[in-house]
């Protein structure tokens, strides 16, 4: 009976063997790596948050200026009489009349796109005074004769006396 009891105990003891230890260690290591990864993600998210916080807020709508009271022009309730301003009379600015025969034509080099090129038109110029005739100049004197060229120098005498080239030193 005692032996059987001891054997049962031994069987129970065998339950916590190396396999259980390895399993616990493996779970712990997995948790370590998982935690490492989670911390990395957390830090990355916090970093992004910090970057967003550091970015200055762009004012899409300009702030409305607060109404300021100008000193000296405070409304007192009295009627203000403004001086009468004379009407401005200016003659209209003369404009050039569009000459007949001009129109919008396609300019070269634009691929057929209609440009605003005004074709030259016939301008009727007013009568100009006639020019005076040009004065005629007297005939030029004949050029003097060129002096005769000197005789060319004689060719230099040969040192070796033959057709051989000197080797030189």
């Amino acid at each position, binding site marked *: 009976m005692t032996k059987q009891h001891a054997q049962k105990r031994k069987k129970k003891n065998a*339950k916590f063997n190396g396999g259980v230890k390895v399993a616990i260690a493996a779970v712990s290591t997995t948790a*370590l790596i998982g935690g490492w990864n989670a*911390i990395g993600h957390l830090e990355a998210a916090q970093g992004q948050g910090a970057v967003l916080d550091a970015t200055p807020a762009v004012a899409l709508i300009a702030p409305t200026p607060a109404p300021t009271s100008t000193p000296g022009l405070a409304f007192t309730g009295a009627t203000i009489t403004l001086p009468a301003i004379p009407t401005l009379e200016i003659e209209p600015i003369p404009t050039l009349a569009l000459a007949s025969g001009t129109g919008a034509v396609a300019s070269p080099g634009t691929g057929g796109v209609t440009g605003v090129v005004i074709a030259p038109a016939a301008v009727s110029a007013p009568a100009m005074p006639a020019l005076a005739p040009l004065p005629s100049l007297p005939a030029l004197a004949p050029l003097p004769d060129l002096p005769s060229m000197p005789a060319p120098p004689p060719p230099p005498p040969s040192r070796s006396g033959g057709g051989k080239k000197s080797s030189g030193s």
Partner: protein
Amino acid sequence: MSVQSSRQTSTTSVLPSRRTYLIELLYGILGLMAGIALIMAVQRLAPALIAQAPAIPLPNLIQTTLSAEARTMGLPLAGESPAYWYAARSGGVIAYLLLWMATFWGVAMSGKMLKGLVPAALVYGLHEFLPLLALAFTAFHALVLLGDAYIGFSVVDILVPFASSYNRIWTGLGVLTLYLSLALVASFYLRSRMGRKAWRTLHYASFLAFALALLHGVMAGTDASSPFMAWLYLFTGGTVLFATFYRIFAVKSTRKTAAVAHRSPRKTVV
């Protein structure tokens, strides 16, 4: 007589022998050394290996996701990489959770909260293995901090309590927790040599180790301000407190029952 002998047999079969302790300690030391060697090798060789590694024909989505996740984790391990800091934080949280599990498990075990719920072998086995694992993760937490270039922890900062200029007091408490955990784990293996009273006294220091770890996490932890971690600290601290009170009252009631049984043995027998 036979019942007594069977009890003795069961106790001796549940509690591992000294040889088993030594083998486990050896495995623990070997594992720790292997872990340190692995970290150092990865730190030295990873950039070169990544540069020379052939392109693995993974589906585009998986490849993109994996590389994105690696970048999020601060990989590859370069000089200014935040990966060390992230890994140290994660390691610290896992070490704290393991220490909490070990403490809670121990208190629940002594308060007989787990009696009949969990097999005895699992109760004792976990009670020994969880502190060892917690110590390994605490060592990882401390060692990885050496690689972080931002704060620049030195070996002295990590090994000498209150030597670090970063959160001097609270970091110092963390170093003390490491030493206390080391002493507690060692006490498992030196139990036969220590004597029952000394072992029991040292075993009570596990409460102190947990309290120091909790303080270290709350005051020096970067993530302590997050609601998740705040709730985690509240939950873990609360459960250990509850289990401790439960144990105190359970022991008191057991003593009372025993005293009553001693006074009137006939009634209790009937």
